[in-house]
């Protein structure tokens, strides 16, 4: 499990405006579409993040179509990478690259499902609760706080221990992970919703006669998109890591290939002790790189949520120039 980033809670309600000001400050017309404003600015780190995430996602989506059957057994066990098997073979001569492709797909599937489920839960408990206020909000926020302090993975392990193996399909694992993983996002969303809810444009919409659901979905939600995106991305990383952990201790989804189960088999096949790094290292590396890709995307989304961060980056070079100019001025 990853640790969480202690999250700054910036004033999201100001962010669009500040971003627009920044855009105009750069001498450009601020972009017409609000959607465009909410896109993170392309920085080398973001590009790296997108490339990492996209390449790995593509590998998971298209990889299985291109590789050989990952279950095919060959007499050549544990062969190092070669022209024939680009990433070598496992103990039973199965092609590591092929397994990696399927396992990546499996992990992505779980990560995505958990991300979606956890986000939906956090939207319901965070946004709806905060919008309604009163007892509903008290109840929802108590619930999410309780879920936040109850340690997730041990709970998941206990649940997985109770669920019979054959019922432990990948979606069961996903649901369990989602149920134990929505609370942090919900808390962040709640705080942001509370601040947006007190904004005049929400009151204005109500005065115009908008209905509650429309106020939530049309007036509040779009402004939360960067936060939601960031929480979603975070949930996907956490889910992939958690599933890998579960699979590694033998509690993962039964009969489904994920990067975690791959590591589990590599570990049981003494891959590391035998120096078969090509079997042990790639699955972990894919998780780490994919996680890094998503985290870098989040890093850039953070700039949308809190434009001060962007300011710092934008001004970095200019500040240096300003300092230099000032120095030459003086002397």
């Amino acid at each position, binding site marked *: 499990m990853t640790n969480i980033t202690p999250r700054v809670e910036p004033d999201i309600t100001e962010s669009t405006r500040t971003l627009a000001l920044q855009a105009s400050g750069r001498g450009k017309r601020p972009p017409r579409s609000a959607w465009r404003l909410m896109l993170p600015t392309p920085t080398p780190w973001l590009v790296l993040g997108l490339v990492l995430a996209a390449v790995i996602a593509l590998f998971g989506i298209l990889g299985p179509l291109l590789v050989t059957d990952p279950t095919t057994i060959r007499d050549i066990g544990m062969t190092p990478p070669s022209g024939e098997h680009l990433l070598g073979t496992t103990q039973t001569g199965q092609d590591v690259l092929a397994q990696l492709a399927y396992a990546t797909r499996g992990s992505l599937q779980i990560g995505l499902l958990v991300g979606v489920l956890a986000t939906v839960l956090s939207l319901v408990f965070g946004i709806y609760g905060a919008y309604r206020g009163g007892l509903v909000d008290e109840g929802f926020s108590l619930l999410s706080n309780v879920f936040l302090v109850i340690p997730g993975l041990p709970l998941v392990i206990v649940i997985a221990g109770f669920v019979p193996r054959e019922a432990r399909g990948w979606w069961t694992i996903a649901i369990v992970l989602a149920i134990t993983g929505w609370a942090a996002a919900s808390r962040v969303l709640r705080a942001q919703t509370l601040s947006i809810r007190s904004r005049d444009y929400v009151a204005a919409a109500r005065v115009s006669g908008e209905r509650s659901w429309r106020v939530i979905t049309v007036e509040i939600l779009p402004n939360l998109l960067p936060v939601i995106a960031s929480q979603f991305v975070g949930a996907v990383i956490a889910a992939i890591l958690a599933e890998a952990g579960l699979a590694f201790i033998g509690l993962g989804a039964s009969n489904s290939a994920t990067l975690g189960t791959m590591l589990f088999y590599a570990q049981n096949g003494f891959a590391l002790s035998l120096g078969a790094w090509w079997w042990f290292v790639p699955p972990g590396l894919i998780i780490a790189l994919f996680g890094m890709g998503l985290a870098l995307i989040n890093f850039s989304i953070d700039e949308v949520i809190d434009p001060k961060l962007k300011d710092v980056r934008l001004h970095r070079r200019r500040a240096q120039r300003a300092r230099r100019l000032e120095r030459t*001025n003086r002397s």
Partner: protein
Amino acid sequence: MTTSRRPVLTVDGLSVVYETESPVHAVSDASFELGAGEILGLAGESGCGKTTLAYAINRLHRPPARIAGGQVLFHDASGETIDVLGLAPDALRRFRWSKLSMVFQGAMNALNPVTSIRAQLHDTIRAHRPRTSRAEAERRSIEVLERVGVDPARIGSFPHELSGGMRQRVMIAMAMILEPQVMIMDEPTTALDVVVQRDILREIVRLKDELDFAVIFITHDLPLLLEISDRIAIMLQGRIVELDAADRLYRDAAHPYTRKLLGSFPSLSGSRGDFIRTGVMADETPGGAS
């Protein structure tokens, strides 16, 4: 227009540029003199560069802002003249607050929320007079709090425990704790209620009379400036377009912008200014231009 009093601060041709993609000349060629014990008002609409100017005087501007030219000279009471823009970092640190202190635009948030008022008053003294004893620092802190009308018993409070008006008073107390010769006040009362604002203005004028420091008072509330300032500078797009004694500026302003600004304020007891309730509108600015 120069002042008849002994100058404490001379700003000469000061220019500040924000080095953004298209550089913003926030302050261009600003020159004025501040006399000892004088209140100099600085007015202008939002974004004209008032705050930038105030920061630049104390070299508080942060990159990407840079001082593109000009001079800031501080004429110490001792007779020495300090070139503020040329001070080395440590000398600058010592100069700040002891000679020239500031009360900021967002004074509501200018106090550190996690330490007590006492700690913040004390560290101001200690930073400049390291040898001050605790007791002495405490005595001095209580004294200035009393001066601005804050109950000294509140010295152990944290900022969030004080009302906005009290916080502003604490800021003013802090600004005078080292008895500086100049105080720059950047919209010190805009966030406050009219009644409270009045109390604080009265306090500032009284303290100034007692302690004889000079004040640069920044606001966009021209009627207010007219009431308290000796002289008023009008800023437009980074330039000081007019600088004159308050009453003269009110009665016969030279610059059209000044006149327009004055016209924007309907008088409480007098005529309506440019406000038209009935009849044809002369000055309803058409949209499009922002």
